[in-house]
């Protein structure tokens, strides 16, 4: 029940895009059609899902204050938490590289349509943000961290696919010229964010 609660919260209420604006760059750039958006969404979800448990374990057993005490009592006083940003980003970059190679091998069409944005998952704020939020909120177990990872990944996926669907339709509407493209996308994201705020009342 606790897991389900956490999952629903991280998909809808603490949505990476609508509540924290994380991963906006690729969100705005790749949400022009549903197919690529789906591909990127899946890739991001996948990267978050793998990096988060890894980073969780690193944080718990290597980085945080006193985390090294499992080696021996002499190590209990060591606090490496100042290295966490750099370790997290290194893990993310490495895993992104692997995902990139896998996508290139198994789906060259997706690879070419995602283009530059595949390597850029490494600097996708949603991925890094998920790791930092995980550290900040001090989840109790790997299980919780994994559920949170899945939830926030799917939340991002949901947001970008929904936005792509709207933008496909929007191509046929008569938007004021200066607002076309970027401007209207920002405003729509804001409006969708307001709609998502309705989920805040959910209690599980």
């Amino acid at each position, binding site marked *: 029940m606790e897991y389900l609660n956490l999952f629903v919260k991280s998909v809808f209420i603490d949505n990476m895009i*609508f*509540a*924290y*604006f*994380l*991963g*906006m*760059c690729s969100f*705005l*750039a790749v949400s022009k059609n549903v197919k690529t958006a789906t591909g990127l969404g899946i890739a991001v979800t996948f990267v978050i899902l793998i990096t988060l448990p890894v980073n969780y374990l690193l944080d718990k057993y290597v980085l945080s204050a006193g985390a090294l005490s499992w080696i021996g009592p002499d190590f209990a006083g060591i606090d490496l938490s*100042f*290295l966490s*940003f*750099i370790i997290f*980003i*290194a893990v993310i*970059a490495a895993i992104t590289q692997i995902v990139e190679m896998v996508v290139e091998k198994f789906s060259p069409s997706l690879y070419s349509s995602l283009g530059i944005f595949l*390597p*850029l998952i*490494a*600097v*996708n*704020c*949603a*991925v*890094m*943000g998920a790791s*930092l*939020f995980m*550290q*900040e909120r001090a989840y109790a177990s790997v299980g919780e961290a994994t559920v949170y990872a899945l939830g926030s990944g799917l939340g991002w996926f949901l947001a970008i696919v929904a936005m792509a669907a709207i933008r496909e339709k929007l191509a046929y509407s008569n938007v*004021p*010229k*200066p*607002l*076309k*493209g*970027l*401007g*209207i*996308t*920002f*405003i729509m*994201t*804001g*409006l*969708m*964010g*307001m709609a998502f*705020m309705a989920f805040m009342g959910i209690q599980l």
Partner: protein
Amino acid sequence: MDKEIYKKPLFLTNPVTVLVLGICSSLAVTVQMKGACIMGLSVMIVTGFSSLFASLLRNGIPNRIRIIVQLVIVALFVILIDQFLKAYMYDLSKSLSVYVGLIITNCIIMGRIEAFALGNKPWPSFVDGIANGFGYAMILIVLSFFRELLGSGTIFSIKVIPQSWYDAGYMNNGLMILPPMALILIGVIVWIQRSIQKDLQEK
């Protein structure tokens, strides 16, 4: 040196409203002007110095680990800033929480290193970084000005809306504090900018 390097990023190629970079990490810090200013300043320092160092190292970086090297340079400066804030501006570092760490993944920094610093001499790269950081800070400050003024009736936490207004029935717009309004305000800024500079309009 070409003046365009530091003039352009402020308006014509503003990283946020034109290049659509770096929106990710930082809209959430625009609820209050103080946070926005520190965030803007931090990003300026990081963009400036990481561009400088990336440019200094540009001939030696092995191509295959280029991205990682860039990330390490950026992360170095971000951690320095984070440690500094924790030591001397503790309250602020708490309220910025994870967003300081997220400067690492701020696309402006990586974008400027890739697009400019790796192909230019150190000094222009530094100026380019600072100017882009400033263009970014400018948007943050404009946004936070409106959000704090209309949302809490304060500027830099100092009350500016007179009590008599409240007595007469004026109310703070709570919506301004919530995340969606930041996006809508940016949309409006883009709208205004593109109304003035027609060549930026999308077909």
